[in-house]
């Protein structure tokens, strides 16, 4: 039995296409503010590339820090898309419908944003391209496939391509609806993008088959991408904090944890700004909250395992690293904050049903998880490098410079801007999926009475 009132197809079209067909008043001011943030980020990146990486706070042992943390964070956020749409689509979970597209689009934008980070972070970004897109065959010098840094762009590019296809296939029927609702230039563009969609049975069959196939094919990619990102760290034999076999599942589950939280937050924002109370209902947020309790607990198990495996060997350098993480200021304070806001506080908030249905509390819990997951990567990367080996002479610590802080903050502006622009052009809730959901409602309205449906075909 689903909550909320029944919706007619006309009403669904009207509600969900409203932000596209009628421009909200706050749209351009919001775009202006976000563009300003992005512009500041681009200028700072230009300044950094012009002057050299000296303007960052990086130093000798700590050669990767803020920007790589941010890279892993955005890759983590990008995992929500597939987690929600592919797994839930294959599992036929009814409550996925309004969340899928927002999650997939967040995947694409978070991935593209994540990719910018390691590229600017190289010493000569203008040359990094020959490793990312190997073209240099004239000299016979190809990228070294032994390096995790070659696996990394390959995995991310695969994921980006497949999730873009995934979104496009789901978008085609909705673009066709838009084509029928617009005139002039917009009509022409939508006609082109709708790829001749007429909504006949044959086209629907292809669309559904492609969706299911891609869901199944994308799942291994989803697991592999963050595993490979974790191998950037796990394959480093010399950094004691990184060289761990648990890293792949630990990072994958952590990515799901932060990604699903981010999707919940984005959904709450969409519900508020576009007035989609009938579509993103409290039962959906509730269901995601319950899913998050499970994910968070699985993640917490891996966190404990990682620490136990680390100190179990009682090697001097590993213990020195753990001592820095847990006992030395400011890392000890960060560690306590991290454990609190990533597991104990949000799970406590997700447990009572009334809290799961309170949008303010849910938003707060989801933001707290994401801040915490950012800190998690930071607490792995920096103390790991600062206490790499037993030679105390080279031990060091790290403080970010204003350049790194600005760059990291501006990536949040960039993802928000891209999402906002997307929502102005394409519906962020799949129309046809909602209509299908309405069709399959477990209760039907007959006159004034709500009667439970007995037959369900799927």
């Amino acid at each position: 039995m689903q909550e909320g009132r029944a919706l007619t197809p006309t009403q669904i079209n009207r509600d969900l296409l409203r932000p596209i067909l009628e421009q909200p008043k706050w749209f351009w001011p919001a775009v202006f503010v976000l563009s300003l943030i992005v512009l500041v980020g681009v200028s700072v990146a230009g300044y950094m590339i012009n002057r050299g990486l000296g303007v960052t706070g990086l130093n000798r042992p700590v050669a990767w820090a803020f920007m790589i943390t941010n890279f892993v964070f955005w890759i983590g956020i990008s995992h929500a898309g597939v987690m929600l749409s592919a797994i839930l689509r294959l599992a036929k979970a009814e409550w996925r419908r309004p969340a899928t597209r927002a999650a997939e689009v967040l995947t694409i934008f978070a991935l593209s944003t994540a990719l910018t980070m390691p590229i600017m972070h190289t010493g000569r970004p203008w040359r990094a391209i020959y490793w990312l897109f190997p073209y240099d065959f004239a000299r016979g010098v190809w990228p070294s496939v032994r390096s995790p840094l070659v696996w990394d762009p390959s995995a991310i590019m695969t994921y980006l391509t497949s999730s873009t296809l995934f979104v496009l296939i789901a978008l085609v029927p909705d673009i066709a609806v838009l084509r029928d609702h617009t005139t002039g230039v917009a009509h022409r563009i939508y006609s082109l993008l709708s790829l001749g969609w007429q909504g006949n049975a044959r086209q629907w069959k292809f669309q559904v088959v492609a969706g299911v196939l891609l869901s199944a094919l994308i799942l291994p990619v989803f697991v592999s991408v963050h595993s490979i990102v974790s191998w950037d760290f796990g394959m480093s034999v010399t950094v004691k904090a990184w060289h761990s076999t648990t890293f792949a599942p630990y990072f994958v589950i952590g990515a799901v944890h932060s990604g699903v939280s981010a999707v919940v937050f984005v959904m709450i924002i969409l519900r508020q700004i576009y007035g989609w109370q009938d579509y993103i209902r409290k039962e959906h947020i509730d269901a995601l909250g319950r899913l998050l309790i499970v994910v968070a607990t699985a993640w917490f198990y891996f966190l404990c395992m990682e620490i136990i495996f680390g100190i179990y060997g009682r090697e001097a350098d590993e213990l020195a690293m753990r001592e820095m993480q847990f006992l030395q200021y400011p890392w000890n304070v960060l560690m306590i904050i991290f454990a609190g806001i990533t597991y104990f506080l949000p799970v406590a908030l997700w447990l009572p049903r009334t809290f799961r249905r309170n949008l303010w509390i849910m938003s707060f819990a989801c933001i707290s998880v994401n801040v915490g997951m950012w800190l998690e990567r930071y607490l792995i990367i920096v103390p790991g490098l600062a206490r790499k080996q037993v030679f105390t002479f080279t031990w060091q610590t790290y403080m970010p410079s204003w350049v790194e802080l600005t760059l990291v903050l501006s990536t949040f502006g960039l993802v928000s801007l891209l999402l906002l622009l997307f929502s102005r052009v394409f519906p962020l809730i799949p129309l046809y999926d909602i209509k299908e959901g309405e069709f399959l409602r477990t209760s039907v309205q007959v006159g004034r009475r709500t009667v439970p449906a007995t037959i369900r075909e799927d």
Partner: protein
Amino acid sequence: MATERVNHKWGMVIDLDRCTGCQACVVACHAENNVPINTQDRFLQHRAYEWIRIERYWEGEFPNVKARFLPVLCQHCENAPCEPVCPVYATYHNDQGLNVQIYNRCVGTRYCINNCPYQVRFFNWWEPQWPATLRNQLNPDVTVRSRGIMEKCTFCIQRLRRGELTVERQEGGRLDDKTMQERNFGPACVSACPTNALMFGDQRDPKSAISPYFADANEHVHEEDRKTRAYRLLEEMNTKPNVIYLKKVDQYPLKLKQGEQNG
């Protein structure tokens, strides 16, 4: 005239018993290899270039203390952890046992710094600069590395190459301990060391001063089985460095309280 190339395998032995921590090797290295001057700024940013550095450790509690010196330079590992992680083959192992860095290929991912257990790789965070008075002291045989790339000890490959060209190609001899010492073809740090704590030579030349130590260290895996004082840094990591350290022989060890171990 010798036409075939002599098959060298270079190696270094550092005798900690002779090292006084005078830093002559550090100065020689800076002058030879066009290493930028380490200003106070660079030190405070923790970005000083130290292709070879003297690590100083204190043993004991004040006032009962002793200073210990450990010169650390690129260990030119046979199983170098920095090599496989480079996505662009900017660092690789050549057939003479040297871990070489190709500046043109380097894009500056800095993965190799992270993966070097000895902390002997140096990134050019800024464009390198020298005071105007030092412009003419730059060594024409050595590239000046630009901003954004990695650099490290090369075992003064420019001197070794010059030695191979003159001694082996032109004169038909062999680049051995004697020629390297007399005609300055060995690394600059070795030539500068006043106590001869640093020794350099060919591991494959049985007459070289370093080869017994390498033979001993290669033959006996465990330190306690070795006949000489040879050991390698972080030997348990199996990086197989081409640099061997000889233990310090302390004639007057610190008087320790009961229960303390002499390190």
